[in-house]
């Protein structure tokens, strides 16, 4: 099988998109920490659970935004470039 220039670029793009998704490791850990903290807090003070869950979801959303940026980068590499 012959590999021409287009194939080569496609291959590099695919690898690049995969590498870009490494960026979701951080948010993954971050979300885990957020939830851990929230659950500990709820365990200590179950009465404040509503408030804590609201803030937890906010925190998760911020951490997740980073993962979404990685996803967008890889989408751009795959479909736009």
């Amino acid at each position: 099988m012959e590999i021409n220039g287009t194939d080569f670029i496609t291959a590099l793009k695919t690898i690049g998109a995969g590498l870009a998704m490494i960026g979701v490791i951080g948010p993954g850990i971050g979300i885990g920490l957020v939830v851990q903290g929230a659950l500990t807090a709820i365990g200590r003070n179950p009465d404040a659970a509503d408030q804590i869950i609201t803030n937890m979801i906010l925190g998760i959303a911020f951490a997740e935004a980073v993962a979404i940026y990685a996803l967008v980068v890889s989408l751009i590499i795959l479909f736009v470039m």
Partner: protein
Amino acid sequence: MEALGINLGFFIAQLVNFGIIFFLLARGVWPRVTKMLDERAAKIAQQLEDARAAEEARENAERERDKMLAQARGDGQKLVEEARQRGEEQVKQILRDAATEAEQQRAAARAQAEEERNRILADTRDQIAALAISATERLIGDGMDEKRAKSVLKRFFSEAPAEAKGLGKQITVISAVPLADDEKSDVKKLTGADQIEYKVDPAILGGLVIRAGDKVVDGSVRGDLSALSAQLR
């Protein structure tokens, strides 16, 4: 941008679309919903307050009621006890009456049945006499005057055995047919007893069986027959 599908036309279309939805809902739905939710929250708060007041009133009423209930329960207990006793007495009385009445009825019925049977047996006595006389006439080929025949019959049915003398003051006399009054007086004279109970048992065929306490004097035809049959054997 184009490759991500971001397109000014679509973008504006989406903005306008959502704007319309928001406008419609903000006009037609949310004011009513928030009003309803606020009203309901107020109403629930009010009702909670009411419920607390009602709870208090209820508790008071409950205490009152408990007191009254305890009193009423005491009174009621007494009444019930009384009624129960009276009822029990009545039941006992009714049962007693019923038993007496039933006993009386049963005794009357038994006496009646006895009388009936005795009457029938007395009737048969004459028939038996007639039959016996005619049979004897055939047998001995000679006429028999009525008087003699009667005495034979009388002997057959009501002759007390000689051993019956002096058995005691109280005796029971069993005969095959009911005894006539003169026969009864004969028996009385013979036995010398004061109180005599007469019984009828057609199974003894003839003669008399006299019982006094644990003594029995058997002058019955059946007794003679069974003695005869024992001898013949």
